[in-house]
């Protein structure tokens, strides 16, 4: 009989490689897994037909047309900034959709991928990163289609979308970070509290109204603005518009607020994720 009492001392543990090398290897594996998951997600998300991807364009298009019609033809209003109505609306609709889908896809990341999570190198965090990156890439393509479409059908010049290129890119990277943060938190909440997914479905409606898709913080009366400024998504949209729309610069948003909020979400989400991992938590399939 082999006596293994006091195993910690008796078994010789393997000497680890230098920590930098191990970190590099871990990073390479994570990227391998995230890349494989992105391809897999892109094939399964809308079923196998490519028509499914049409929905990614149709949904914001329908919302654009409705809001455009309501504000221009029925209420006879101009956008609250110097931009044209479709440009103003799209810079609100697309980032909001990306935010909303990050929360939703983050929430179901673990429960809808339980078979994959049995591969030891696939972690919940990889699934979340892959989903948000795929969503961001899809949104970028949809945005380009809108920009080109409006140029040829509506005569909207490309320059209507570019103010300072560098700050524009920074605001979009900020959006990506913001979406990662809320997706990681959303996943953590949903794993310990599955009704979260449905609750967010209800929360997202008032969020849609207060996030500034069809107004700027500046155009609100003072009282309403104080409440809208509690919503980090409103700050995010205002940041993107300030950076991308020529001639619009808002005094009412705070980049620090957006990034702090995203970082707090990310850290709480990572902590829940880590605690569940250490405890050996098994996710139940939805």
């Amino acid at each position: 009989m082999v006596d293994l009492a006091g195993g910690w001392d008796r078994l010789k543990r393997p000497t680890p490689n230098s920590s930098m090398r191990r970190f590099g290897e871990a990073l390479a594996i994570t990227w391998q897994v995230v890349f494989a998951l992105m391809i897999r997600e892109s094939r399964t998300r809308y079923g196998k037909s490519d028509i499914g991807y049409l929905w990614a364009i149709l949904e914001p298009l329908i919302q654009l047309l409705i809001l455009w019609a309501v504000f221009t033809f029925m209420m006879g209003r101009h956008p609250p900034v110097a931009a044209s109505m479709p440009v103003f609306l799209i810079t609100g609709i697309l980032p909001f959709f990306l935010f909303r889908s990050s929360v939703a896809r983050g929430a179901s990341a673990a429960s809808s991928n339980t078979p994959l999570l049995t591969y030891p190198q696939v972690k919940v965090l990889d699934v979340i990163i892959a989903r948000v990156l795929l969503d961001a890439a899809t949104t970028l393509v949809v945005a380009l289609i809108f920009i080109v479409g409006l140029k040829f059908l509506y005569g909207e010049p490309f320059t209507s979308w570019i103010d300072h290129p560098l700050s524009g890119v920074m605001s979009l990277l900020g959006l990506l970070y913001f979406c990662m943060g809320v997706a990681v938190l959303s996943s953590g909440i949903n794993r310990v509290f599955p009704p979260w997914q449905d609750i967010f479905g209800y929360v997202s409606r008032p969020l849609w109204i207060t996030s500034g898709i069809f107004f700027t913080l500046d155009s609100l009366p003072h009282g309403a603005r104080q409440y809208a400024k509690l919503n980090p998504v409103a700050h995010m949209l205002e940041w993107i518009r300030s950076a991308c729309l020529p001639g619009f610069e808002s005094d009412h948003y705070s980049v620090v607020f957006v990034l702090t909020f995203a970082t707090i979400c990310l850290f709480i989400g990572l902590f829940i994720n880590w605690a569940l991992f250490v405890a050996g938590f098994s996710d139940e399939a939805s």
Partner: protein
Amino acid sequence: MIQLYDIEKSYRGKSGPIRVLRGITADFPKGVSTGILGGNGAGKSTLLRIIAGSERQNYGEVVRQGSVSWPLGFSASFAGSLSGAENLRFVSRIYGMDHQQVTDFVADFAELGKAMKEPVKTYSSGMRQRLAFGLSMAIDFSVYIIDESLAVGDAAFQAKCNAIFNERRQRSDVIMTSHSIEMIREYCSRAAVLHKGELTMFDTVDEAHEHYMRVSA
């Protein structure tokens, strides 16, 4: 090489947690194949899943050097809406393998032909098993985990499974459970007994079998 340090695992039961593994410490050195004996519900599958990394322990640590397979006998995790080839590509990517090589090997071995391009949900369970077994042979694991059964398919295909696996055993180790002590004798040079959540390792299969008969009687 795999080392287990003080592994604990429990599941939620109706009247409180059920402690399946109670502090298991064991060493599975390179070049040694080990059988695990235990009654029904002793936690053999749980132990194998934790060794494979398919499931996470509640407490303790697993150290793995080299790649460890998922428990063979269960089919690997495939996405039903994707084709056999697409599933192979995904698994090849996460294991850092050349997916063309893997696909060619599995298509040839598993005799799936044109079905490789069809969604896996249209496969019979036999086809899925052949795909999973072929995939596990395409990846060069240093340790193979076998839960109960190895060979799949009809008699001819089972012979093919055994042949390729015997060749693979020249360079890979095995950690396995089986109802058949003959199969464990064939594959393993030593065995352990899992009883009441504790694992006792023996230097030979015979000693382990004797101990197992004594505790399970």
